[in-house]
């Protein structure tokens, strides 16, 4: 039986061969690829979590997050002090907001749907409308903005879920699933879409401190063990 992740990878290869699978961590995957809706070519990144509930813990990330890696959307794309419409802010990198491609309250998409037939196409449409908005100030693709009560920002941190369970067994099970027993910090960084994934060699104390996910506890019992192991 073909797994959900295998299905996604197969269809991405078939429909969008220029997209590269940068990371297959079992529990999540990252693709990057070019889209050229009109004149300009953009590189987009798709971070995909097929499941959010597994082995007794909950992954807090959205099932899918799409950002524009190059050229960056930026904070003021029109030079009018307005951000782009239809985005989620990305606190980790404000110049790379997450594209909002579907209405989560209208069940327009679910993780069982193929990225190649939905998310990638919608991202191309978003970029096309973005160029139209840049040129004219009007967003021609329609859409809606949530009220304040509805607004939700996807929360980061795969590993915070494992921490929250306070279970070493669960943490190591997560590590076997992802193929990595890197620190919570590195897992958080990867989940935020930081790429390439950092290693301990590149991580200074200052960077680790700066990259603390808000969900991580500063009294993390595992952090001490891992730091001592390093």
């Amino acid at each position, binding site marked *: 039986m073909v797994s959900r992740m295998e299905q996604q990878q197969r269809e991405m290869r078939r429909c969008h061969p220029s997209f590269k699978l940068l990371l297959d961590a079992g529990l999540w995957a990252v693709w990057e690829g070019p889209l050229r809706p009109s004149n300009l070519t953009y590189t987009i990144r798709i971070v995909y979590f097929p499941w959010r509930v597994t082995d007794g813990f909950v992954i807090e990330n959205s099932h899918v997050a799409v950002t524009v890696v190059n050229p960056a959307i930026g904070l003021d794309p029109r030079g009018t002090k307005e951000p782009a419409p239809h985005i989620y*802010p990305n606190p980790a990198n404000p110049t790379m907001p997450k*594209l*909002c491609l579907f209405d989560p309250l209208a069940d327009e998409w679910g993780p069982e749907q193929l990225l190649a037939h939905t998310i990638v*196409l919608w991202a191309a449409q978003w970029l096309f409308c973005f160029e139209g908005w840049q*040129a*004219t100030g009007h967003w021609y693709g329609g859409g809606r903005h949530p009220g304040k009560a509805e607004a939700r920002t996807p929360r980061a941190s795969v590993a915070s879920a494992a921490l929250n369970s306070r279970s070493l067994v669960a943490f190591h099970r997560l590590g076997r699933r992802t193929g990595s027993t890197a620190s919570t910090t590195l897992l958080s960084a990867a989940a935020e879409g930081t790429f390439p994934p950092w290693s301990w060699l590149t991580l200074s104390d200052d960077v680790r401190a700066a990259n603390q996910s808000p969900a991580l506890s500063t009294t993390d019992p595992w952090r001490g063990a891992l730091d001592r192991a390093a």
Partner: protein
Amino acid sequence: MNTMSRFARKLADMEPIDILLADVVVRIQLAPSEYRRAVQRADTLADWLDRPDSPLRGRVRLVYPQGSMAINATVARHSERAEHDIDLMAELDLWAGATPREVLDLLYKAIRGERGSRYWDMTERRTRCITITYADGMHLDITPAERRPLTIDRESDIFHSKPEDPREPEQRIAANPHAFATWFDSQTPADDAFGLFFEQRTLDEERMLLAEVATEPVPDQEPAYRKSKALIALQLLKRWRNIVYDRRPGQRRPPSVLLTWSVARNANRTSALVEELTWQANALLDLLAEADGRRQLISVVNPKCRDDVLTDRWPATLADQRQFMGDLREFIREMATLKAAAAQQQMLPVLERLFGERPARDAVAGYFKRAGDQMRSGKGLVLPSGRIPVAATGLAAGATGAQAAPKHTFYGEE
């Protein structure tokens, strides 16, 4: 499979700049309903000239289109006002020894009629024609002509008379605009996929405009609008020339017939509209530069009537010629900027400068709106490269090689 489907892939691959340039022309050309109105007005005028008390009764042999009207290359005169010039020839049966002044005065009197007639306040006598100006901005320019004996294909004499300037001699001048138009058409056959695309864009725009007045149904086809890239390039060059010379009131501009001749001679050498436009501007500049290099004024004749000099009134001096050469160099630089533009945000100011703010803005807005409408109705197409095939709007996904994107709602914080 219908004709559009046959060309679906070509349409899907059309470059955005070509779509925008074509859309500018859709907005400045004589629309099909306006074309039909012009033809009706010409027919009405012909009947009027032959009315019982007309001084030209029994002398009007034929009224037919000439110039831009004959090749469907008419463009709106001014940058903001949609005024079109419709050129007609009135072939007359004249008496022996008729002078140019007599002929033009007679035609003026025949059109104007008596005080209170429909044309009384609308008519102006000019040096070679009579102009009727309608309230909707259309201008009919009627040039009297007399067939030259023993010639073929409507070769005629037209008449030059400027009573307000006694120094200017009256003249009979050879002309064969009918044969010239036929020659132009033979040099610029309609493109296949591009021609169909332009025809459909014209009809879509027509439907939108007429929906507000709901007077007549828009046909599904209008073959006269299956234009070649060369013809579209000619219309863009004329429009640009109009805008440049609008800033020089009182100065005679390079004649449309010169631009038309140059475009016809250099047609069908490129594969994209933006390339055709650049190529044609360069070809015209080379032509002027070749004459200028010999310190001579350019001189061009009708290839179907060697006595018909197309440049008899412009340029009058080398300064006129060199000024237009400078304009062409600037145009070519602007085209390079346009081609290098990464997005429509950079293209828009160039299009505005070259062709006028209103058609440029409307073309850019229309480009995004058409695709946006498709997205909102769940009919949006996306090619494997991520391209949104605006020119293939309304066609089936399979025919274009695109995927149909499921209906969705953009969301997110404001």
